[in-house]
């Protein structure tokens, strides 16, 4: 396929796992839920590469027959000028044009194609990690005129539609579940209470590395610095200015700031899709409740049934 107009788009998959001990960040799709559902809609195995679009989508001319699905944020996608729904798979033919605009709800969209986007694996992943200039296409965002080849997929998967109950809505005021820790003991009781009971607003300092929020100051006991420690996906880091940053796919592997809490896997996509000025609230749950949420999250991908498989 040919990128006529790039918007802000880059190749992502489940992430580069197993190299964090060398300082190599995982990268990977920020909204893993939408990314995985996209692959399922076009009949791919988990882990095939898709395009992640951020705020502004691309225009693509297909140079082969395939199946495509758009998931995640609403980018007013059209196929040859005809409106396309999200969370459905469509048959496209060579010469067809897919056009995405600016985001209308959410922040990130995924374009999944049957067979996946075919770029070389780097350390087991096709994810673009711009900081290390690796993965995807030459380790960078796409630009106008780029050509991407795609793997061979099953064209019979066209016409799949995700059941309504699996389609998320992107709210401008959302509550996410966290497990307190690893460094919740570096905060005063007042600081923890503030964190759990105040609204935090999404600022314009948000990228694939992390989302910086703004709200009531979260009080430390002795300060924000710790001796460097690993940063898990979804960690809520509170730095010297007492404001939270939610760490996402392109986060650095280690860091020297306190982490008050960590988001549950199922709620990380809600953060990734939060638009500027929207509100995020934090709700503390215990580890066993978090496991329950994880089990439910994973089961969603297993419970899907498609019409052509039942025929």
């Amino acid at each position, binding site marked *: 396929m040919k990128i006529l107009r790039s918007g802000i788009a880059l190749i992502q998959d489940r992430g580069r*796992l*197993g*190299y*964090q*001990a*060398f*300082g*190599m*960040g995982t990268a990977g799709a920020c909204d893993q839920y939408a990314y995985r559902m996209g692959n399922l809609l076009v009949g791919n195995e988990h882990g095939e590469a898709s395009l992640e679009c951020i705020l502004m989508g691309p225009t693509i001319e297909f140079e082969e027959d395939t199946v495509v699905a758009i998931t995640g944020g609403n980018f007013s996608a059209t196929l040859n000028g005809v409106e396309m729904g999200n969370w459905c798979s469509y048959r496209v033919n060579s010469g067809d044009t897919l056009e995405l605009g600016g985001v209308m709800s959410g922040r990130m969209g995924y374009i999944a194609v049957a067979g996946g986007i075919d770029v070389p694996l*780097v*350390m087991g992943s096709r994810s673009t990690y711009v*900081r*290390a*200039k*690796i993965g995807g296409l030459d*380790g960078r965002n796409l630009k106008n005129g780029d050509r991407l080849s795609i793997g061979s997929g099953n064209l019979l998967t066209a016409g799949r539609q995700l059941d309504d109950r699996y389609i998320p809505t992107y709210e401008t005021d959302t509550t996410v579940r*966290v*497990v*307190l*820790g*690893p*460094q919740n003991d570096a905060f005063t009781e007042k600081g923890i209470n503030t964190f759990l009971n105040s609204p935090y607003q999404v600022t314009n300092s948000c990228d694939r590395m992390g989302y910086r929020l703004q709200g009531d100051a979260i009080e430390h006991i002795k300060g924000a610095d710790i*001796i*460097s*420690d*690993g*940063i*898990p*996906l*979804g*960690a809520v880091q509170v730095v010297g200015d007492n404001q939270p940053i939610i760490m996402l796919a392109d986060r*650095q*592997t*280690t*860091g020297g700031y306190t*982490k008050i809490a*960590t*988001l*549950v*896997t199922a709620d990380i996509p809600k953060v990734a899709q939060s638009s500027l000025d929207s509100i995020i609230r934090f709700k503390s749950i215990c*580890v*066993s409740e*978090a*496991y329950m*949420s*994880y*089990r439910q999250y*994973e089961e969603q991908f297993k419970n899907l049934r498609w019409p052509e498989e039942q025929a």
Partner: protein
Amino acid sequence: MYDEPRFLPAGDRALIMELGDAIEEKCNNAIRSVVEAVEAQNIEGIEEAVPTYRSILFYYDPLVMDFYGITSTLKKLYDQLNVTSGTTGPTLVIPVLYGGEAGPDLGFVASHAHLSEDEVVTLHSSRDYLIYMIGFTPGFTYLGGMDDKIATPRLERPREHIPAGSVGIASKQTGIYPIDSPGGWQLIGLTPLKLYDPNREPPILPSVGEHVRFKPITKEEFDAIKVKVDEGAYQPTIIKVGEPA
């Protein structure tokens, strides 16, 4: 270093095993020994380990093993652990052009230490450093054991652009920037080696538990090595354990 490890939850897919709260070789040796033992035993459910100076972040699959299962396995492993000393790894020799444009802060480090630039270079290059951890960016090595005399605080205002290969000092630590990045360390020199090269196998040169030795070189030697590195023909000097230096 703590008497007993602490286990801290980090969401539903990760936990942190903390062995101490300071930068010390004993703790770092224990960290490395735990990681080696976990890798050797291939513990079910553990997917990835990210060691630091004094803690290990474990990613795990909660559908295979939960927090209590993982922590009790790790605790048992820790109690039976044979902590190895920090002197077992090979030593990677890193040629460095010190001072001048290659190391714009060498003068400041020298005046801060009340030494000459040559004395700083001699102190910096006359011992082997243990790689305590790799983090921040791909291949950024945090080295322990630098002479206290040349310890220098970070820059008050970090630089926006530091070239790959820069060798720096930040308080008692020294390290090498593997890729172009911002940063606040005092820069004393530059190596022509690529510590990180995504097109090479392995992409990242040193590993945790190995040692690094800096070898002062001239501008001519720097240029000659750089040509070889760019051609992919440079073989770094690695001194194995037991070999004479």
